[in-house]
């Protein structure tokens, strides 16, 4: 199973760009990388998913280097409402859910 490692916490200020890196050294060929966001007292919510290079949507960008051993979630111009826990998830496209591994999560705190 591809284990993931993320920073436990990060602080930022409103309006700044935030980059959260996830390490997944044992990622397999078929694995995709997915990021979720979780607010207190709520279930996680899908943010973005990618396989290689760069993916961008209306919420975030995901950068994946050629070796795919890490990935970086980029949140542009964060606001106070982006304060949440962010999870990096690595999973097998053909396997069972047992191949899915949630990281321990990164607590992002956005300060005014």
């Amino acid at each position: 199973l591809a284990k993931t490692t993320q920073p436990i916490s990060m602080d930022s200020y409103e309006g700044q760009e935030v980059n959260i890196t996830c390490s997944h050294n044992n990622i397999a060929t078929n694995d995709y990388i997915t990021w979720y966001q979780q607010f207190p007292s709520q279930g996680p919510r899908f943010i973005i998913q990618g396989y290689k290079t760069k993916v961008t949507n209306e919420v975030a960008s995901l950068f994946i280097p050629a070796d795919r051993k890490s990935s970086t979630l980029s949140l542009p111009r964060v606001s106070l409402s982006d304060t949440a826990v962010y999870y990096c998830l690595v999973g097998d496209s053909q396997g069972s859910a047992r191949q899915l591994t949630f990281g321990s999560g990164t607590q992002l705190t956005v300060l005014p």
Partner: protein
Amino acid sequence: DVKVTQSSRYLVKRTGEKVFLECVQDMDHENMFWYRQDPGLGLRLIYFSYDVKMKEKGDIPEGYSVSREKKERFSLILESASTNQTSMYLCASSSNREMENNEQFFGPGTRLTVL
């Protein structure tokens, strides 16, 4: 709008009691999952199901069982609750088995306390 609901937001039970946590999704999803979430440990998969009456163990199945009699409903059962099962329990569903675009939709969670 997609929706996953869980029967209770908060639950308090006593050691040894049998506990049922219910999860219902209205998206006609094939896959359903039960996780528990504890501080510092992230989300850990307990059981999952890819079809009615089908179940597979996750990473921490000990002390739990599940039931999926209908496609939309996935129940987590604690046969004899213990204090170390005090946790936040999260149910999720997704539309297909493959990872690409396999977004999991989560319920709000059930905070279970076992006294």
